[in-house]
């Protein structure tokens, strides 16, 4: 167990800036990987975690080069090897499981060929043995019908299946060390839990060492024996997984853990101020100085070394870590939300809304109707009260964003009505809505990189809605923009900046400010935090909550992340295949009894706690189309009771907590089943 497989020594990797300065992305990193051990490398985007992981395979991305240090694999330096020598090690001794298997599998080659290629390179098996091995491997990663799977092309598989193929390919060469670069990011919650479970099984079964790189402490917590926390290209904390997650003694890790929304915890997570410094911007002192609440003058001038604390078996890079040793009990706290959901009048009603993506046939186009018997979204009834935050939650394909687009008027409804403001019917066609209705409903998108015009300054971006809806100009316009920036905690000097000069969190703040510029009644939030780092996500969530409390706005919040939804919403609607499964006050939806699908989702959530294991109760394969009749969840339901589920749409049942569940099983029976 103590045999060291790979050891990184004082590794620095960097690039030459345009001004000819050497800028390092990775600074003086040293760590050891032992045999049979799984090491989690965690950090936010730009922390250098992927660069480190790739360097451990002797791979340096184009434009970067090693400045000093070495990567020793079985006491040979990978960074000094020729490409010929590296080919012998990659795939055979160290194998990689990439982040996005959909893009990492060559599109024109069949699955079987791609696995066979690895086998041919790294084993001495003959053709028939290899064929046998391929189906063995596909079987091992639990892919359905491994015999025919080999003849498929990557695009014919679902995201989870592609990831499994990548795992099979990595195992083909029987490597001593597996490198996993965000292997579950981008997958659905249930798929993610299944893939992680598979990886854990493989680690145990083959005794392979693993390096697991992720930004997601929840996933890291499930697989790692040891955790390395990276910040701004340095290791700031390293130690046994349980210790790091339960008693983090570095202020960054502590703050990071506190900024993750947790299922078990109502209320908003605490955010960290600021964001990670850009490479090359740190001249002296601790790289975490700006954001640290333990910082003093010493931290500003001197940068701390990685210090080994023997009794905790931990390395930490902080002068003041002792202050954190005994105060970790308050990791489980959160900010309570003030609910201003006192008004009972409904501001928006969705009545029997159905939406279809089916292409209109010629005659239907003439008659301007949509004849789709099995539409993507069907029978949605939701009444949204003024001042509440209602969340639509579900996996990809659940129709949550589709509903949002229809409310915004970007997508025509097939049937049903959207009523706004005293039961006035809103046209489903954007062009037919009056300007005041357009102003009243605003949208914030997932990715601020794409929703902000890169050629406009922040001032131009924010002045557009102000000019359009309120005809402001001159001094008044400027004053309003400054006010808006102040509301989203950005200074006046941001006015002249372009989106590319802002960090991800700042960009999303500008997008929030733009939505609020219209003084809207309802803001539709489409996965607004999923492109952001955890610590930034917490800050944006807090900002949204604050603005709502101050201005009384109503949010319709779409997300796949149940913990985020738990943190921000007052009410939750759970969707599967475009049909409502459950709706109710959020504290009750997260309690049992709940709809079997909610149960599956809640079970799959990964918490940053090694003691809370996900419960896998259903298969992770989603049907391509919603079933024509019966319950939408019939195909995957772990509690299916029989034919009635396939033939009849389940009735709504209202539990004593006030959450409505659409299931054939009696609600009391569900409660006793789910105990």
């Amino acid at each position, binding site marked *: 167990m103590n045999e060291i497989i790979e050891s990184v020594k004082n590794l620095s990797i960097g690039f030459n800036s345009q001004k000819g300065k050497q800028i390092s992305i990775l600074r003086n990193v040293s760590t050891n990987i032992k045999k049979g051990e799984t090491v989690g490398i965690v950090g936010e985007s730009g922390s250098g975690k992927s660069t480190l992981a790739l360097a451990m395979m002797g791979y340096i991305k184009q434009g970067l080069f090693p400045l000093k240090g070495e990567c020793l694999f079985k006491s040979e330096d990978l960074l000094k090897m020729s490409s010929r020598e590296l080919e012998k090690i990659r795939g055979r001794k160290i194998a*990689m499981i990439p982040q996005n298997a959909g893009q990492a599998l060559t599109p024109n080659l069949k699955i079987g060929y791609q696995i066979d290629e*690895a086998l041919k390179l790294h084993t001495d098996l003959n053709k028939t043995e290899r064929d046998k091995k391929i189906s063995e491997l596909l079987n091992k990663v639990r892919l359905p019908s491994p015999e025919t799977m080999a003849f498929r092309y990557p695009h014919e598989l679902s995201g989870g299946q592609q990831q499994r193929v990548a795992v099979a390919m990595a195992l083909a060469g029987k490597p001593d060390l597996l490198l996993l670069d965000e292997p579950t990011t981008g997958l659905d919650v249930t798929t993610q839990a299944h893939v992680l479970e598979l990886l854990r099984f493989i680690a145990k079964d083959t005794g392979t060492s693993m390096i697991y790189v992720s930004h997601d402490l929840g996933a890291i917590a499930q697989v790692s024996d040891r955790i390395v926390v990276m910040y701004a290209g340095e290791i700031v904390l390293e130690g046994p997984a349980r210790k790091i997650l339960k008693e983090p003694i570095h202020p960054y890790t502590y703050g990071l853990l506190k900024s993750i929304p947790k299922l078990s915890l109502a209320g908003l997570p605490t955010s960290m101020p600021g964001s990670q410094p850009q490479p090359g911007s740190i001249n002296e002192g601790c790289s975490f100085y700006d954001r640290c609440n333990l910082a003093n003058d010493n931290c500003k001038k001197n940068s701390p070394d990685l210090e080994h604390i023997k009794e905790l078996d931990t390395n930490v890079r902080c002068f003041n870590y002792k202050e954190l040793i005994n105060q970790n009990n308050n990791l489980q706290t959160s900010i309570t939300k003030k609910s201003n959901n006192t008004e009972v009048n409904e501001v928006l009603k969705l009545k029997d809304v159905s939406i279809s993506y089916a292409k209109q046939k010629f005659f239907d186009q003439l008659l301007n109707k949509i004849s789709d018997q099995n539409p993507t979204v069907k029978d949605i009834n939701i009444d949204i009260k003024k001042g509440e935050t209602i969340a639509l939650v579900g996996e990809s394909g659940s129709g949550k964003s589709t509903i949002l687009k229809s409310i915004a008027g970007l997508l025509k409804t097939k049937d049903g009505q959207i009523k706004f403001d005293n039961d006035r019917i809103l046209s489903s066609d954007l062009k037919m809505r009056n300007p005041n209705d357009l102003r009243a409903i605003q949208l914030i998108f997932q990715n601020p990189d794409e929703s902000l015009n890169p050629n406009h300054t922040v001032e131009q971006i924010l002045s557009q809605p102000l000019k359009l809806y309120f005809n402001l100009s001159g001094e008044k316009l400027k004053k309003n923009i400054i006010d808006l920036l102040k509301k989203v905690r950005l200074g006046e000097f941001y006015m002249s900046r372009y989106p590319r000069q802002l960090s991800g969190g700042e960009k999303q703040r500008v997008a929030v400010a733009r939505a609020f510029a219209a003084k809207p009644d309802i803001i539709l939030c489409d996965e607004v935090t999923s492109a952001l780092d955890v610590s930034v996500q917490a800050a944006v969530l807090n900002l949204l909550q604050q603005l709502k409390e101050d201005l009384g706005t109503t949010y319709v919040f779409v997300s796949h992340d149940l913990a985020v939804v738990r943190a921000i919403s007052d009410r939750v609607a759970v969707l599967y295949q475009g049909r409502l499964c459950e709706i109710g006050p959020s504290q009750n939806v997260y309690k049992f009894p709940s709809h079997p699908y909610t149960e599956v989702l809640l079970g799959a959530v990964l918490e940053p706690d090694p003691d809370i294991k996900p419960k896998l109760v259903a298969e992770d394969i989603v049907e391509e189309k919603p079933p024509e009749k019966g319950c939408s969840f019939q195909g995957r339901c772990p509690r299916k009771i029989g034919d009635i589920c396939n033939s009849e749409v389940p009735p709504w049942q209202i539990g004593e907590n006030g959450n409505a569940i659409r299931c054939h099983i009696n609600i009391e029976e569900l409660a006793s089943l789910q105990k």
Partner: protein
Amino acid sequence: MLLLILKRIGLGLITLFIVSLITFVGVEVLPGDACTTYLEREAYGAALDACIKRLGLDVPAYERYFDWASNVARGDFGYSLSGEMPINEVLGPRVKNSLVLASVSILIGIPLAIVLGIITALWRDKLPDIMISTITIFSMTIPEFISATLLILIVAIWLGWLPGIVIIPSDATFYQLLSNIILPVVAISMIMTAHMARMVRSSVIQVMASDYVQMAILKGVPYWKMVFRHVLPNALLPAINVVALTIAWLLGGVVVTEVVFNYPGLGRLVIESISNRDLPVVQALAIILASIYVGINLIADLMTLMLNPRLKSLQIRK
């Protein structure tokens, strides 16, 4: 799949039908008709009547169109005015000559372009790339009538290695042609090759930066194997359509080059028949050039469909 091919062919035929209509209507609405343009100052009285009767211009336009169109569909373009001989006989050798010129250019140009594109992409920003890229960008910017003239000046006049203009009859044999077409081929393929090489280069560079190529490297696939199995099939696929467009665009280049070199091909016939106001021949040429254009694009589309597994399975599922 078969249905799709038939659908594409059908669309191509519709395009051709529209082209034939436009050319016919275009000729029709021009002031004067075939007889007045042909007879010029003698276009009056009995001579004109006789001509109109002979060419059948006295029947209504739509009838003439259907007559003409159905003949064309059978491969008969009617009679040329100037030579008073069947257009098919005029066209035949010219088509052959141009085809030889174009196909030799393509056969040399495309493989050369692909090789150059790959070399420049794999040695990106290194010496081979810088040298080849400079030359390709340079030759892309010179129009072929200038490069053709320069070629004549340097190779034919100063060095005297090759004949400057082509002096062969239009019914020359294949071997006669080959020895005469070196300079025209160079002039035509220069721009085309340069365009395609740039295109292949950027396509290969893009694929080299993809996740799956990084994955192949990290899987331990040797460099050249990776290039041939993982990079090229994916990089050349989008190039097929560009190649088709380039070939179609080459038709225009052929016209200019043929005139400069006095080469007896379709291009020169276009210029000749326009200046002779030989309207039936112009009509016939328009149809032929349009068919080549449609045909090449059709082949390119079908090839992409066959070679791209993603599109193929999409079609089958439908």
